[in-house]
């Protein structure tokens, strides 16, 4: 399947600093269409029918998320755009913001209209501070053109909030804690954000890429969108490719495209040993399984693809991953806080050739305990690459 640009349609074509270039490509037509000719429920129904699922990695159905939000009797509601792109190997949101900030703003505007929110936040990671002016400028221009601010009988505004360096804040409940001015620690759930979110109000949190899909769905219709992709994964996905490839970068492909096509044909990897899909928390795919299609029903995550060539030590790679989690664990729950630390020690021993059979058992037991008992996605997903390495590359753990 060749590349297909929907989310990235305007990237490199419009001037991200000039709203007129976005308007000339049907920009904000979807928002106008919704506000003039559709009820909020119709917008939600359209998104539900499109089959769009969250692009931040978890794949929750977006329309359903919005609908849950409207079920709350509470009238003050919020939309949050999650631009805390911290997953190792992911840089698609950076690319989208850099090239088409207006598409995101239109998406947030549509989400706000659908759930009846008057306020939207963009939570931008501190590492992307250099994108802040671009975003704020885009918001300002949208306001001047009348797409934000006072609209009909209500108002809708967007504010940029910045993190201060914490991977965990990309997790939705930790992100809300951070906006509220607290340590970004994951919350116990339920209640979920559509019920008790930011400042305990109903909130919908969507990834940058998810929101960037919305204008296209509303403008061209759910039927058009749902033709693309697989049974359970509709539309396209934006992939970030790095590691041992000739052409690292951003690629947008229909859901269901085989991993091999993306890695070998498009980004031109040679002599590869394995690919990690979904960043540090993602699955490790050995070369012989490269024909796996990329979709929610198989393997996807947030679309980070890191490629490892034959001369790489898988233990070193996995160790780097776990060290990352040990550093970024928020420390609130024991399985994650202690588990990542112990794993990191064991992997260090293996990388020095000092691991033993018992260590392997501990790695496996710990992985299972963490996946079962951790409070949030960080601890639950951290052992993925450890377990996969034990299945596919056990011989490298030379004991």
């Amino acid at each position, binding site marked *: 399947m060749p590349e297909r640009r929907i989310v990235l349609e305007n990237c490199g074509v419009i001037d991200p600093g000039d709203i007129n270039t976005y308007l000339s490509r049907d920009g904000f037509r979807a928002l106008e269409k919704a506000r003039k000719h559709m009820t909020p429920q119709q917008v939600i129904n359209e998104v539900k029918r499109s089959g769009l699922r969250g692009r931040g990695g978890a794949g929750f159905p977006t329309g359903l998320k919005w609908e849950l939000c409207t079920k709350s009797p509470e009238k003050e509601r919020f939309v949050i755009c999650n631009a805390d792109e911290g997953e190792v190997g992911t840089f698609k949101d950076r690319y989208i913001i850099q090239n088409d900030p207006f598409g995101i703003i239109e998406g947030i505007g549509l989400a706000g209209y659908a759930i009846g929110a008057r306020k939207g936040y963009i939570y931008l990671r501190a590492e992307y501070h250099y994108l802040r002016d671009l975003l704020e400028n885009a918001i300002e221009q949208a306001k001047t053109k009348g797409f934000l601010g006072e609209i009909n009988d209500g108002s809708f505004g967007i*504010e940029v909030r910045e993190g201060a360096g914490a991977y965990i804040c990309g997790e939705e409940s930790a992100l809300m804690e951070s906006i509220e001015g607290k340590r970004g620690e994951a919350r116990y759930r339920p209640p979920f954000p559509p019920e008790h979110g930011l400042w305990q109000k109903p909130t919908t949190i969507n990834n940058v890429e998810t929101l960037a899909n919305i204008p296209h769905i509303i403008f061209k219709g759910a039927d058009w969108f749902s033709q693309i992709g697989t049974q359970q994964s509709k539309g396209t996905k934006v992939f970030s490719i790095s590691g041992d490839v000739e052409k690292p970068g951003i690629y947008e492909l229909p859901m269901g495209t085989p991993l091999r096509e993306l890695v070998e044909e498009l980004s031109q990897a040679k002599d590869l040993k394995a690919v990690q899909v979904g960043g540090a928390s993602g699955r490790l795919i050995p070369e012989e399984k490269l024909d796996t299609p990329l979709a929610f029903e198989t393997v996807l995550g947030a679309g980070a693809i890191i490629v490892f060539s034959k001369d790489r030590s898988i233990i070193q790679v996995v160790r780097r991953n776990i060290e990352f989690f040990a550093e970024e664990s928020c420390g609130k729950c024991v399985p994650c806080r202690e588990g990542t630390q112990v794993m990191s020690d064991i992997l260090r021993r293996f990388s020095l050739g000092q691991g033993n059979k018992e260590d392997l058992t501990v790695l496996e037991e710990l992985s299972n305990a963490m996946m079962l008992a951790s409070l949030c996605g960080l601890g639950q997903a951290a052992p993925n690459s450890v377990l996969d390495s034990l299945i596919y590359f056990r011989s490298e753990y030379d004991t």
Partner: protein
Amino acid sequence: MSDENLSLELEKLCVHYKRHDDLLSFIKKVHEKCGYLSPENIKNVASLWNISVGEIYGLTTFYSFFSTRPLGQNVIRVCRSTPCYLENCDVVVETIEKKFNIRPGGVTEDGKFSLQLISCIGACDQAPAMLINDELYGNLTTRKVEAILKDYEKRQANSFNMRGCDARKADCFRKLWSH
């Protein structure tokens, strides 16, 4: 700037950030003005915001962009996550270590540069990459890092001479370093 002036300025800023209910940005502002979050700063923020000192301290130690010890005027953050590791980020770190004679976590003697190792900065297509303050630098090699650092040293000298710099900031730093 005298301590009194600083507190006055913080009080004024505080009104703005309170209106937006944005504590994190306020702390960031204090951090920016003073270069780090001293025990006094933490107490100040706590009393201005009417929150316990413990809570503010908890915040400042949670986020990696906050520091409770003085940082250099320029903070170099080198990414050491997997994609940058694959592209030899260790060489970048070594180059900076050698140039400034500091270790990760350290500050140069003149207080001009800090070196930190951080998690993925989302520039994996340009690995190895680093941030200096808020600027992103990618596809780094030893030679490129040396050139960038030299440029910063030059900029630093110019900004002190020409703009009278941030006399305020310089003053603030001198005070910090004399402790």
